């Protein structure tokens, strides 16, 4: 499991960028939105927490599709399945590697990008906290989606379709935390819900993913 985790990290870094790319996508998205909605800064600052969250979510999503697909194509997954490594462990390790290469850098970068969107400075801390608590859930849920669609060519879009609805609760509570934080309101309730989601999916989904993967290898 440890070795799988480190191999995935290494692969992410080698494959031209790794850490960098998720971030770059996030950055570009945050830059594109003002072009789309027009540059009125008061409007921007109101939608900033939401856009940052949606952006983080999409950046996560884009890097998901190859979580298992590459290993499936080159046969590694078959070999892993016949190895001593329990599949649950493999799924957890892969989700963790995904989080380290996307969720973590996104979380660290979000406060900086918040400036671009004219967010009030009080919100910086809260966008950071909400992403730190919420992104692990996105990696784990994404892992489940990736496991479901592993055998399908052009699975990328189907993956998004399956995973995005699952992301909705995380998004709602995460963005709520960030928004309330930015407006100086109480954040305890949504933050607790967010943490609850993250814990629940991390506890349950790796097992489901492992099951699904085994079915897919048949």
């Amino acid at each position, binding site marked *: 499991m*440890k*070795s*799988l985790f480190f*191999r995935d990290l*290494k*692969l992410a870094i*080698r*494959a031209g960028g790794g850490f960098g790319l998720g971030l770059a996508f996030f950055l570009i998205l945050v830059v594109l939105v003002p072009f789309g909605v027009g540059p009125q800064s008061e409007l921007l600052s109101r939608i900033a927490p939401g856009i940052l969250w949606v952006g983080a979510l999409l950046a996560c999503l884009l890097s998901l599709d190859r979580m298992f697909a590459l*290993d499936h*194509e*080159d*046969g*590694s997954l*078959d*070999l*892993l*399945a*016949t*190895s*001593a*490594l329990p599949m649950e462990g493999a799924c957890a390790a892969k989700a963790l590697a995904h989080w380290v290469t996307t969720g973590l850098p996104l979380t660290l970068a979000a406060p900086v990008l918040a400036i671009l969107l004219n967010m009030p400075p009080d919100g910086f801390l809260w966008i950071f906290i909400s992403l730190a608590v919420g992104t692990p859930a996105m990696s784990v849920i994404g892992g489940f989606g990736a496991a479901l669609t592993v055998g399908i060519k052009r699975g990328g879009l189907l993956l998004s379709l399956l995973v995005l609805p699952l992301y909705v609760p995380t998004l709602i509570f995460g963005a709520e935390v960030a928004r309330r934080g930015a407006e100086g309101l109480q954040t305890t309730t949504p933050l607790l819900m967010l943490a609850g989601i993250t814990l629940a999916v991390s506890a349950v989904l790796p097992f489901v993913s492992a099951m699904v993967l085994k079915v897919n*290898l*048949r």
Partner: protein
Amino acid sequence: MLDVKDLSVARGGVPVLEGLSFSVPAGQALILRGPNGSGKTTLLRTIAGLQPALSGQVEAEADSIAYAAHSDGVKGNLTVTENLRFWADVFGTKGIEHALQQFDLESLFDRPAHALSAGQKRRLGLARLVVTGRKNWILDEPTVSLDTASVQMFADTVRGHLAEGGSAVIATHIDLGLDGTNFDVTPYKATQKKLVGFDEGFL
């Protein structure tokens, strides 16, 4: 030690082979033969536990099977050593030098795998088998793309493995120069059950 009892296997929902029984004692190799499309790959995947059997059993010690198929599970972005070391870690074995040396990969040790030739990549895939430390090797056309010298290397490795009490099931179309039982799957081709009336069920 591997025991196959009255096994039937299917691919894509269609029965391919049925009524297979054989056993491969320690120290022995079974060479699977059969024309293209006869069901060797399907059989090997079933034995390796990657797909369920239609009926019958496969008996082997727990965690004793190492499977190698058409695709090598080699990551192009990792070097030869990194690839091997990863699999060694996954299978909890140590020391990849032996495997590198057995397949003459020492001079390529820090080459990223995508810059290997077809045969070199295949050799790396086979070296992975050695580092699994598993007893039962299930090999699907292992010598594809190999030149004669490398085929020889492979045969020597298998012989060494058998001498240490391992066993192997190998599907191949060429002569490997191994002495093992030949097993032709052709006679076990699944036959049609007679259709007795139309029962609106599946088949």
